[in-house]
Structures are given as structure tokens and as C-alpha cells.
């Protein structure tokens, strides 16, 4: 009943994609509703990040359709409703001369629109976003001078500053130590449960995502398994095998 009252934010239907030879994605469908915390997991090279990039319009699918907020992606213009934390969060130019506040302010640009100057309201939202993730006191520090975990938080703040309804995160814990990674997942959970923010997280870390997300989708070129954390708990071993070693052979 609850699921029926929630509106669909992302609706990807029968997506196939290829970089040239052979399909990287084959007939993948996924719906994300408001308030969901969807974890897309699978082994390296499974096409997780490619699927995310297709959903964001960065890549054009060979087949299939994507609707964002009930609009075909080709006609969608309200990009400020979507936040994005890219894979290269831990791999950007650390000598880039930009402060934490300047990075977070970039998250307001989609909402502000072209040719329009940054306003007091934009700065207020940046302050709110940086305060929410505990980085306001670092606002004048250069992003390159922070630790990996702090940099990640700043990129989350950038996504939050635009007041999006959904945030996509592409392998955000790559290269981060375990303690920082756990803190990061706790922050995501907090944003999802306390602020009702919809999250789509791509990760190769099946067990950790299964603990955190409300919906788990295992992909390896196509959808191998999808279900809730409760269903995952019941058949976790089989799903782990499915995700990292492929389907078990049928014995007659």
C-alpha cells in the first residue's frame, strides 16, 4: 500500500548498452521510488557504473527508455532535482585551487541556472549542506588539503546544496579506509532515514550495501537478482555466489 502512494523518480525500462563490440548491459529494468535507498552491486566490470551513467543521460542506451520524474530523459530539464557524487571523488586534481565552500557552491549552479549570479540564498543552502555533514568549519580550506573521507563529505555536501530529491553515488568508498567507510555509510543512512532523501548507490561491496540499502539489485551485464535486505539475509550465500561467480549449474 505504502509503495503505491510513493511516486516514481527513476524508471529505466529494458536498457541495453554497448561501447562497440558486445553488450555491456542487456535488458535491464529498474524503478526507483521516493525514499528508496537502492544499492546496485556486482563484480568489477559488471556494468554498474555504465548503467548509472545511462540513467543520468551521460551515455545513450542502444535500446530501452529512461524516465526521470515521469518525463522522458530527452525532455528532462530540471537537473537540479538530481544530485551526483562521481567515482572520481577520490581521484581528482588535489592541487586544484578551490575551497570547500567553492566546491559545495557548484551544487547550486544547476538550480540557479545559466547567466545568473550566486545569491545569498545559494550561500545559505551551502552553509546548511556543509553543516549537515559536519564540514562547515572547513569551508575556507582547500579541498586538496583534506583527507579522503573529508573530501567525500564535501562532495556529498555539493550534491545536497542543490536540494535534490535523489542522489546517485558511483563507488564512493573506493580507496577509503574501513573506519571512514563505515562513517560514510552511516551518513548516507542518516540522510535517507532522517531527511527522506532517495539514494542510488553503486558499489562492489555486496555485504556492506546489503546492510544499508532498502533495495538491493545485483547486476552482471543484466539483473541477476533483486530484492530486500530481508530476502538477501535468507539467501545471502547464494546471491554472493551469483554475483561473483555466476549462476550455479543445474544438476539433474
Amino acid at each position, binding site marked *: 500500500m505504502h509503495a503505491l502512494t510513493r511516486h516514481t523518480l527513476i524508471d529505466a525500462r529494458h536498457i541495453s548498452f554497448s561501447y562497440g563490440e558486445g553488450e555491456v548491459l542487456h535488458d535491464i529494468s529498474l524503478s526507483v521510488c521516493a525514499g528508496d535507498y537502492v544499492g546496485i552491486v556486482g563484480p568489477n566490470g559488471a556494468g554498474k557504473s555504465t548503467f548509472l551513467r545511462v540513467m543520468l*543521460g551521460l551515455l545513450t542506451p542502444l535500446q530501452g527508455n529512461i524516465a526521470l520524474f515521469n518525463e522522458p530523459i530527452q525532455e528532462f530539464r530540471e*537537473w537540479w532535482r538530481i544530485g551526483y557524487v562521481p567515482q572520481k571523488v577520490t581521484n581528482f586534481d588535489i592541487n586544484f585551487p578551490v575551497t570547500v565552500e567553492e566546491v559545495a557552491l*557548484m551544487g547550486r549552479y*544547476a538550480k540557479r541556472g*545559466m547567466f545568473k549570479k550566486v545569491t545569498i540564498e545559494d550561500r545559505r543552502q551551502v552553509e546548511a549542506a556543509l553543516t549537515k555533514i559536519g564540514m562547515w568549519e572547513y569551508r575556507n580550506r*582547500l579541498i586538496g588539503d583534506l583527507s579522503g573521507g573529508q573530501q567525500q563529505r564535501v562532495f556529498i555536501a555539493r550534491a545536497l546544496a542543490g536540494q535534490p530529491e535523489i542522489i546517485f553515488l558511483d563507488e564512493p568508498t573506493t580507496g577509503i579506509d574501513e573506519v571512514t567507510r563505515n562513517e560514510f555509510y552511516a551518513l548516507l543512512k542518516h540522510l535517507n532515514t532522517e531527511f527522506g532523501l532517495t539514494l542510488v548507490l553503486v558499489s562492489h561491496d555486496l555485504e556492506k550495501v546489503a546492510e544499508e540499502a532498502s533495495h538491493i539489485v545485483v547486476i552482471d551485464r543484466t539483473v541477476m537478482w533483486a530484492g530486500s535486505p530481508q530476502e538477501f539475509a535468507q539467501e545471502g550465500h547464494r546471491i554472493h555466489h551469483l554475483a561473483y561467480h555466476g549462476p550455479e549449474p543445474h544438476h539433474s
Partner: protein
Amino acid sequence: MIVSFFHYGFIMRGLEAGMVVALVAPLIGIFLVLRRYSLIADTLSHVSLSGIALGMLLGINPVLAAIVFTVIASLGIERLRMSKKVYGESALALFLSGSLAFAIVLLSLARGMNANLFNYLFGSIVTVTTTDVFTITILGALVAALVFLFYKELVYITFDEESALVAGIPVKSINVVFIVLTALTVALSIPIVGVLLIAALIVIPVLTALQLRTSFVRTIFYAELCSVCAVLLGMIISFYANLATGGTIVLLMLGLFSAVLLVMKQRRQIGSQ
């Protein structure tokens, strides 16, 4: 002595044009350096030489001819780069060598222009005409206005192009606008530093400011300060010492860069003790 310097009409023209170029070059340079695309300034400066040569051959204003030539070439480079038919750097090499070859052929046709050519190659404020000052001021103001207009989008694209795309920023269109602005800046700088040293004017003040490790806005401010000081001092010194203007300006910029590098290294050493 300084008073007499400002009394010469050609000096005032040179100073006016020099100040515009000094202010505009770092505005473009900061985005080129951070996008690892500094080499395009060098390529476009060689392209501008073709324009200069054509202007001299046809008897039209060489700076105007260079502006038209450089803008057209910049669009060609961007198109070739976007098509991915050749690597980005190879596209630059193609245009650099091709335009230099074209310029040499044109200059061999226009014999007897060697004295003027020297001025365009190495920069001399004596060559700055009233038309040049007018053109440089109008186009310089246009470049600065467009950089301010697209400032936040340019910063976003330079820092994280993929996220800028997701934010709905028309990255391709802004890249085209930016490369045209780069071409204009290169062409405008010819009379002051000359074709061979334009890249230095665009890149060195930004590299100097980057050593200070501060915010984006402050980095632009310090690059502007470095650029204006070097151009102003370079023009005065070159006038009294009878030196080539472009070379003097660039040597001053390099001196400032080295000094900042040393000071920052010492500060880091003191900080780590």
C-alpha cells in the same frame, strides 16, 4: 624621467593595449592551465602568425587578420578534437605546424616586410596603432564580459566536467565559446608580447598564482596582479633599456614566478619544522 615616458603618444597606446591584454590573459589562462590545455595558446599563436602574414601581404591590418584567422582555426581545432578522429594533442600539432608552414610561405611571398615581422614576432609597443588600441579594448572587454557571464559554468566544467554535464550545463557549447575567447585573447596579445611569447603571458601569471595555494577567486586575483605588474614594468624597462618588450615582460614574469616558488618553499620548510 617617468613623466617623459608617459608623454609619448605611442607609449600611451602601448600601455592602454598592454593593460587590457594583461587583465584578460589570466582570465583565460586559469582555465587553460587547470584543464591541462596550455599548449593551445602556443598553437593559436602560431596560427595568428599566418593571419599576420596574410594581413601584411594583402595590406590589411595584420592584427585584425590574425583575429579572424585565429578564431576560425580555434573552431577547427575544437571540431577535430570533438570528432575524436585524432587525439587532442595531435590536433594541436597539426594546426601548429600547418599554420607555421602557411605563414612561412606567405612571408616569402611578401618580401621586404622583415622589420615589421620582427615586431610581430617579438612584440613592440611601437607597432600598436590607434586602430589596434580600439580593437584590443573592445574585444578585450568582450572576452572579460563573457568569462564573467559563464564564470560559474567554466569553474564547474574545469573542476569536474562529468558532474557539470549531470547538472544540465551545456558543456559542449561552453567549450566552443571558451576556445573562441582563447583565440581572441591570443590575437589581441600579439602587439604587446609578440607571436612567440603569447603562451607565456597566458600561462606564467597563473602558474605563479597557483603556487600560493588559495581559493579560485583569489588565484585569479593574484594572477591578474602578477600579469599587470610584469606588463607595466616590462614596458617601462624595455623603453628605457631599449629592449624587446615581449621578452622583457616574459623574463619579469619568470622572475616573479621563481621568487614566489622560493618563498613558498621556504614557508613550507618553516611550517614543517
